[in-house]
């Protein structure tokens, strides 16, 4: 059975069916991310004085990732324009660039995640806080929750935990290698989603966004690879598929345009 209106516009909507479908899907996506943005606003406004992090993320890396996604958006739209102009070779080239950008974006994001997951904060018995990346971990947690052994970290010690929150206001000095003795530790944890509200929001929002990047890249990869066979049999339908995947990809870019300032800059 043939799927109707894959190329020609349906008389009542004036659009081919897939286009109506993708816009309905994107409308639901707006509400999904909208709910998470709403949660972000509520949690940020409700956070205690001096305990909302600033400057925790690597701004140059975030900027590069933003530029990479913008570049992938132009290559996506150029891939579609190439199909419209009957230039299949250019379509292949532009979408190969899109896929490279997607991989680069995910690579940088993975590096940032790794950096957060190997970054630890220690609450010590003398009331101070040690913060840094683990160099050597010889700690063992006993059944009662106490630690034995030691850990070497590259970081710093502070008296007031708030100094660890606003890194823009409290410029971190040079990081040095510190030895943290297990029995001195009251509590320790990495900067994963469990660390605090900010990291929970950061990992949830960027994680969901990264899943969208992966999904979009898989579809674009299919159209670039095995799916491109349709160009020979039904070029117009193939072009419409490229347009639909492009609309999704632009939406992914659009979400990042808001995520970048609220998580990295503000």
């Amino acid at each position, binding site marked *: 059975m043939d799927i109707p209106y894959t190329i020609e516009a349906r008389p009542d*909507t*004036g*659009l081919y069916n897939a*286009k*109506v479908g993708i*816009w*309905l899907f994107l*409308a639901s996506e*707006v*509400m999904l991310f*909208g*709910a998470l943005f*709403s949660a972000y*606003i*509520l949690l*940020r*406004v*409700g*956070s*205690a*004085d001096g305990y*909302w992090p600033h400057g925790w993320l690597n*701004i140059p890396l975030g*900027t590069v990732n*933003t*530029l990479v996604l*913008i*570049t992938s*958006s*132009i290559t*996506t*739209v*150029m891939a579609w*324009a190439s199909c*419209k*102009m*009957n230039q299949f070779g250019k379509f292949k080239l532009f979408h190969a660039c899109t896929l490279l950008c997607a991989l680069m974006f995910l690579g940088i994001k993975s590096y940032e995640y790794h950096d957060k997951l190997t970054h630890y904060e220690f609450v010590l018995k003398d009331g101070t806080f040690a913060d840094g990346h683990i160099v050597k971990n010889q700690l063992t947690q006993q059944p009662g929750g106490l630690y034995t052994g030691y850990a070497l970290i590259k970081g710093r010690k502070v008296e007031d935990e708030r100094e660890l929150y606003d890194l823009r206001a409290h410029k971190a000095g040079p990081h040095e290698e510190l030895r943290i003795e297990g029995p001195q530790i009251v509590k320790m944890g990495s900067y994963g989603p469990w660390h605090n509200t900010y990291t929970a929001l950061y990992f949830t929002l960027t994680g969901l966004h990264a899943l969208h990047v992966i999904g979009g890249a898989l579809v674009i990869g299919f159209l670039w690879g095995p799916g491109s066979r349709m160009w020979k049999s039904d070029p117009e339908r193939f072009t419409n598929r490229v*347009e639909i995947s*492009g*609309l999704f990809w*632009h*939406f992914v*870019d*659009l979400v990042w*345009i*808001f995520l*970048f*300032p*609220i998580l990295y*800059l*503000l």
Partner: protein
Amino acid sequence: MNPSHPEDITQHVRRYLYVFYALMFGTIVTVGASYIPFGNREINIGVALFIACSKAFLVAGFFMHLISERKMIYGILAFTAILFLGLMTLTVLSFADMPHHAFAH
């Protein structure tokens, strides 16, 4: 509506490139503006969100062709906008229940 003739496409491609340059410029301005102390954080947030909205308009308007789409799409998005604004209104109204310290950051 999408361009369908090759001449129209060529014209559109030029426009896509201008939008691309504007988005790149907007990103640099967003980062630069975040380092300018405007006096209080609300102004910094306002500036960053204004630039983000402008960039979003460019992506949605030109790359997603929303600037010249069919009525059907506008209808779908009008519903989404109403629901989204409702959600954000509820979020803002809930501030009335926040303790007074809440607006410091």
